[in-house]
């Protein structure tokens, strides 16, 4: 059966994921070392140790995302995170920064290393480099590849691949995007938070809901229309006289129907996005995808999902997996 890797922003969400059937849960510390550094989220050291113990009692693994890029002169914060993840009993760490991958390979050789989507490793050469030089066992592929491209990559690499199947989409080269940094001065890749809520303001203006990021109005949602996340890449702008989503429509990934194709492509693990989401989301999405991977493993069709209302913009897309680019 394909491994289901599920998000946990809090200990309660971790328990919900495990109880709903997650094979593995990924989470992070409450600081700048992980890419979901939002207020009220994430794990203290004791909470991580308790979460790992809970998951292991139920046969699930815990992967710790330390997937931001260390700031010059402050590497100790990231190094300590890796050491503390190992001490807590984590089954693997998910890393993005080349230097941190090297540090982990040298200082924590017994700790399994996964490469984060933030590393944007999208071709066999770079994946094989990480595997050969630093013993990286699994690569989370960026969300820009088609199923055919994933199949081709898997034929040429000596590492497991993990792909996103549900949740919010980054449309930029992951780990490289500076849109939010431009508007707020805070970097998703170094501070761990895209569109930091401290820089987001919502205002009801007559019949519309305006969302501002760092003082820039990036969306205006009409009465009754679905609202997206306040990210620049899903912003609605006027360009050359046309108003629209210049970069990407605000829709979430749902690749559940592609699970059989991803299995044939040689993918090891399926990842659900959403560490910023509630335990209600985690429970519902994990249950749905656990049923799907069980069905595929048994040779049955993927059950019809009911997850659209949980999606950004209340709309779903198969993303790049089966995309015709404009």
């Amino acid at each position: 059966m394909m491994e289901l890797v599920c998000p946990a922003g809090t200990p309660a969400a971790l328990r919900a994921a495990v109880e709903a059937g997650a094979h593995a849960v990924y989470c992070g510390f409450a600081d700048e070392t992980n890419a979901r550094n939002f207020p009220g989220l994430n794990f203290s050291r004791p909470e991580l140790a308790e979460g790992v113990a809970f998951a292991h009692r139920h046969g699930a693994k815990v992967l710790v995302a330390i997937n931001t890029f260390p700031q010059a002169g402050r590497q100790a914060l990231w190094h300590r995170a890796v050491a503390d993840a190992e001490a807590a009993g984590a089954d693997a760490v998910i890393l993005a920064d080349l230097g941190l991958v090297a540090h982990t390979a040298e200082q924590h050789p017994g700790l399994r290393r996964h490469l984060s989507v933030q590393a944007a490793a999208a071709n066999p050469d770079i994946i094989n480099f990480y595997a050969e030089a630093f013993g990286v066992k699994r690569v989370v592929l960026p969300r820009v590849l088609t199923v055919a491209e994933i199949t081709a990559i898997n034929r040429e690499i000596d590492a497991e691949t993990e792909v996103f199947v549900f949740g919010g989409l980054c449309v930029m080269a992951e780990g490289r995007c500076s849109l939010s940094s431009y508007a707020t001065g805070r970097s998703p890749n170094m501070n761990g938070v895209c569109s930091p809520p401290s820089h987001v303001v919502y205002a009801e203006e007559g019949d519309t809901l305006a969302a501002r990021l760092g003082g820039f109005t990036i969306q205006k949602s009409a009465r009754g229309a679905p609202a997206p996340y306040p990210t620049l890449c899903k912003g609605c702008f006027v360009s050359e006289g046309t108003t629209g989503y210049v970069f990407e429509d605000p829709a979430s990934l749902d690749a559940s129907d592609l699970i059989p194709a991803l299995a044939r492509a040689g993918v090891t693990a399926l990842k659900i996005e959403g560490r910023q989401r509630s335990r209600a989301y985690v429970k519902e999405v994990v249950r749905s995808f656990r049923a799907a991977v069980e069905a595929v493993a048994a040779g049955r069709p993927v059950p019809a999902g009911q997850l659209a209302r949980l999606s950004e913009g209340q709309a779903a897309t198969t993303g790049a997996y089966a995309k015709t680019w404009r």
Partner: protein
Amino acid sequence: MFGHAPEIPVFPRPLALGLRLGPAEPLGLPLTLIARRLIARHPSLISRLGEHAAARFAIDPTDLPLCLLLHPHPTRTRITVHRTAPEADARIAGPLAALLGLVHGVYDGDALFFSRDLVIEGDTAAALALRNAIDDAELDLGAEIAALAGPFRPALDPLIALAQRTTGVALTRADDARIPGEGLA
């Protein structure tokens, strides 16, 4: 007011109008006692607020003619009840059923935001911290209120369950998870 997702019940209008008849302020005392009891049992409610622990939150059930103002504190949390939305650092507004469903793990906050059933104004970071802290605490308001009833609890539990079934409003924690494979023959 925006259209609600079909599964979110709206507080019956005649009952909401009835709430206008009496004074709102006395409701603050029992709500304060319940909040203090919850925080004593779930100290992470405060610690997860981090730098927003001193923020004032307006909790605004949009289908009721009142609004709560929450001042969190490790031991002296206070809730006051107002007829109109008071000045606050952050305002979280939505139908009462949506707000209770968030507390009890029935609804996802982002999904309610996408559908416009939940409105956040003011300090977005503070509102997000509160939402995440509450979600992690796995609160059960029905159980807390029943526990306050002391010897009358056995009589109150079925009434809460009946109210939940008939109104569709989550008055207790959603707790129906199971480990796949467990309990199966």
